[in-house]
């Protein structure tokens, strides 16, 4: 057990990386966890050989949206129904820019601008909310209303006057024919990611096909997850969590609470924007349903069920619930989701992943709070 705590065994580069990724703000600070994590990633890598990677790639894209809410709500305590606004702005920005500049360079710029667009809208909203003294449930109401405003606005863009360059916004019909996602610089190096299958001749299994977009998403998601783990366990992440727990106390330690909230909200917006860009890329299409009330509610359900104080929970629950949602026919899916949300709020308010983590700790005979148990472990507080 001693070798699995964060406080010791920090020699070498692996130890230093682990020190950055582990801390009180994430579950899984043990070798066992990282072994399971590696198995999970390996599972994602080989999954296309046994299942439908097409659906799973959608779930993984949406997991980024789940992560964006986990950071904003779970770690900084700002319950936002507006993540889909940044998601939609990212998707539409990507569509408009890429349709007008349908070369790999243009599409790469569209990807970046989609992310920047999501971040900018979040920064603007966040600035007026947090510096305007809006707190708690009023942030939730404002963000919810903003999704409805965007839905109403985008729904009435069917006319030809709502055309930006060559890109028609298309009202409820949405924006079809978004160019296939490709990244690179024209005439130097480009690679098409969507609808591009690479075939490799492997020694034992024979011909293997790789859907590049799927592996791109897996890479983006794993890197995002690890990056966010490092963020929430850093000094800055500790301040985020401190603000979630007690704003006034944290302010009286000399921290600029409004600025931290604005930064986290903007990062969440960028992440949701990235998710939106990849969503529009994968579907080659986007329509105003991404601003609809149903879609706006989904991230809150994913994060509540998975455990809002757990990044891993957001990813696992997004994949699980979206799998459930596409497996159930028609409107029943929404009924099941509603029941699921109520059941979790009543029975397991902390969410499923922290609960499993607690159960595993108990099985190993550890009280959950005894984690950093080396009394002379200054490394615990001197890292980073």
């Amino acid at each position, binding site marked *: 057990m001693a070798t699995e705590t964060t406080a010791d065994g920090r020699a070498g580069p692996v130890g230093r990386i682990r020190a950055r990724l582990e801390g*009180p703000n994430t579950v899984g600070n043990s070798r066992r966890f990282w072994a399971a994590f590696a198995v999970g990633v390996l599972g994602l890598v080989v999954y296309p050989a046994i299942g439908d990677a097409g659906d799973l790639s959608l779930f993984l894209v949406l997991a980024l949206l789940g992560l964006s809410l986990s950071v904003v709500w779970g770690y900084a305590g700002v319950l936002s129904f507006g993540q889909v606004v940044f998601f939609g702005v990212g998707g539409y920005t990507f569509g408009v820019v890429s349709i007008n500049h349908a070369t790999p360079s243009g599409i790469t710029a569209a990807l970046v601008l989609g992310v920047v667009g999501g971040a900018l809208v979040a920064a603007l909203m966040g600035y007026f909310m947090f510096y305007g003294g809006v707190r708690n449930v009023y942030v939730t109401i404002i963000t919810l209303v903003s999704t409805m405003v965007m839905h109403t606005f985008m729904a009435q863009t069917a006319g030809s006057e709502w055309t930006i360059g060559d890109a028609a916004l298309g009202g409820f019909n949405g924006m079809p024919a978004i160019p296939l996602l490709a990244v690179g610089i024209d005439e130097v190096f480009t690679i098409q990611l969507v609808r591009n299958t690479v075939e490799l001749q492997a020694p034992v299994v024979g011909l293997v096909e790789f859907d590049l977009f799927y592996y791109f998403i897996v890479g983006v998601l794993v890197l995002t997850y690890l990056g966010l783990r490092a963020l929430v366990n850093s*000094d*800055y992440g*500790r*301040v985020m*969590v*401190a603000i979630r*727990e*007690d704003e*006034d*106390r*944290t*302010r*009286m*330690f*000399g*921290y*600029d*609470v409004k*600025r*931290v909230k604005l*930064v986290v909200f903007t990062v969440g917006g960028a992440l949701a924007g990235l998710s939106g860009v990849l969503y529009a890329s994968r579907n080659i299409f986007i329509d105003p349903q991404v601003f609809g009330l149903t879609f706006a509610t989904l991230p809150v359900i994913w994060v509540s069920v998975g455990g809002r104080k757990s990044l891993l929970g957001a990813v696992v629950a997004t994949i699980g619930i979206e799998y459930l949602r596409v497996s159930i026919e028609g409107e029943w899916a929404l009924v099941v989701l509603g029941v699921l949300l109520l059941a979790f709020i009543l029975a397991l308010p902390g969410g499923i992943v922290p609960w499993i983590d607690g159960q595993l700790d108990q099985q190993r005979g550890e009280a959950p*709070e*005894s984690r*950093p*148990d*080396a*009394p002379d472990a*200054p490394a*615990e*507080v*001197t890292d980073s």
Partner: protein
Amino acid sequence: MSADDADVVSDPDIRQTPAVKATGERTDTLLQTDGLVKQFGGFTAADSVDFAVEEGELRCLIGPNGAGKSTLLKLITGKHAPTEGSIYYDGTDITDFEPQDRVKRGISMKFQVPSVYNDLSVRENVRLPVQRFATGEERARRIHEAIVAAGLEGYEDVPASSLSHGQQQQLEIGMAAALDPDLLLLDEPVAGLSVEERQGIADRITRLNEEAGIAFVVIEHDTDFVAGIADEVTVLHQGDVFREGPIEEIESDPAVQKIYLGGEGE
């Protein structure tokens, strides 16, 4: 987040502290409020308060419920903005400073209800104020010193939720003192504590005052506790300073006794 003082809002027109109060023979005024008024709707919680704290002084603030003690502290920390009047700290007008910028200048506060982070261990609690301005070895040293100052050695890895109420009060005082402040405001630090715990807190406050030279403003109702620690006492009544002086004089003042018993004072 840049934690240094570079981003502290600096007032280009820094006014000097007004003349120290008429009776003040000392000149090293750390904090001075000048005609501070705070109105909540029609209710005046602070009514033209002139209140001063000298460097290194230990001053208690007493007064009946609703006298405006907590309001005065919240005006000093910037939680509330005054309706009228000014606050000077170390010669600078800080009336319009954000709370975090006042903290960076040296004002620290312990809240009335213990505000500790229940999910975090004692060490991680203390780390929060310290990590803003200290890294590496210095961070570890300051965290250790704060835990010692709080009297919580041996509890480093215990979650704050498992501490007793008294230990949580100690922890929060340790966290507030870990900021290395020049002025520490304590809002009822011994409310709900046993006699032994009160004595422990009193010893810690006295030690921080004498050894670290921190000036204190302590809100407290218990006159025995006040007598045990304070140089000077300020009595607030109906939002204004009613009496100031040594505790013996204040205790035996019939007008003070009368306001505590619900009268109108003079």
